[in-house]
């Protein structure tokens, strides 16, 4: 059992299936975290704002 699957089994099928899910969720989560942290740093003046035209 893992936090995301009640019937988790340590075998290849579960690892591939959930592994790919976690990779996708991880990329989405990390991407949004990066954007939020970068925005916060720019808002509070720790990072320069890039100007778009």
């Amino acid at each position, binding site marked *: 059992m893992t936090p*995301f*699957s*009640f*019937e988790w089994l340590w075998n290849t*099928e*579960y690892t591939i*299936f*959930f592994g790919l*899910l976690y990779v*996708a*969720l991880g*990329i*989405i989560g990390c*991407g*949004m975290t*990066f*954007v*939020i942290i*970068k*925005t916060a740093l*720019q*808002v509070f003046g720790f990072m320069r*704002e*890039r100007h*778009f035209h």
Partner: protein
Amino acid sequence: MDSPLLPEGAKRCSPTVFFFWTLPWLALLAWGGLSAFLCLYKALNQTNMSNVFAFALWIVFDLGVIALGAGAFFTGFLTYIIGRKELKDIINAAVIIGFICYTGALAMLGIDIGQPLRGWFIFWHANIHSMLVEVSFCITCYAMVLAIEFLPIILENRELDKIKELRLLGHNMHEIMAVFAATGTFLSFFHQGSLGGMFGVMYGRPFAARGGFYIWPWTFFLFILSAIAAGPCFTILCTKLTEFISRKKLVPEQAIQSLAKIAAWLLSLYMILKIADTLGWLYGVVPDAGQKFMDFYREGPYGVWLLVVEIIICGIIPAIILMIPKVRQQQGWLIFACLLNCTGIIFNRFVFIIVTLAIPVMPFDRFWGYLPTWQEWGVALAVIGYGVLLFSAAYRYLPVFPKERELNAVAE
């Protein structure tokens, strides 16, 4: 009244006209709301679904809109990964259409499963050998990606853009959009494919069953290909419809033609593979199952005309129209071809869902008929109402088409 919210320099109809425009779509939503309430309150006996038709109108609509919404991921892939810069003029519209299609499909699935409060069971008690579980995972994740792709477009609203924090957030999301586009492509590839794979592995139903490669039946690849062939055409259709209603040029012809050309090649490839698949089914799966071709087309309203409509009228004809540059450059032919292509993909999903279930599989079985109830139509059509309302609001308040001002400068 709402002029501060409108995109800078863009002309829009008055709030009164806009209000009246929304009324029929709000009526569709109200019909859908009542139907959904009845289905949730009194259960699925409000529908004509049965043990035979566990998949019915809602799944046809679901698979149809998911395929038509493929324009979002594929246009995103072409724009951000392949680097087709001209498609930046249409990517916002593609993302919004994709968002509408996927959230609409998810909402409809919420009613379809009967007990939406137990919807999370599919994640918690995942049957990893089920193609539908993969579809559920991918659709949910991809809906998140679409929401992330839609957010910067919302943040470009004139009033929201004045808020520094939101403007920065939008700009920073834009900067890493390629990452989200790549994730969306990965997720879409698998769920579009698995929707097809699900039918291909129905070995007890030779009408849908197919051979394949490793664990994937040919329908897995055909569904992906058909979705990426029809999705861009649906984006073109929605854009052309918006141009017609607003009486403005919104997207440069180069972007439209580029998308149409890509759709033409994909549709042509799809048709070649679809014909090969049909012949393989005809001379492989059907005799192996001890049946004859005409056994599937003998009863009910579903005759050989199904194949003629799907492959010739809604497949080969639009492919030819879109392949010839001089023909597809004419607006009428372009719209006609896109309409046929989109109709074809919905027809394909209808055949795989309804006709597969209607055809008897046992000697003692009979042909099953199915007609949706008004509640089923209500929930399904509500997705159209929701889509038109959201797209209309987005067009009115957001800079969906970046070249709108430039293309209409002389006219205004």
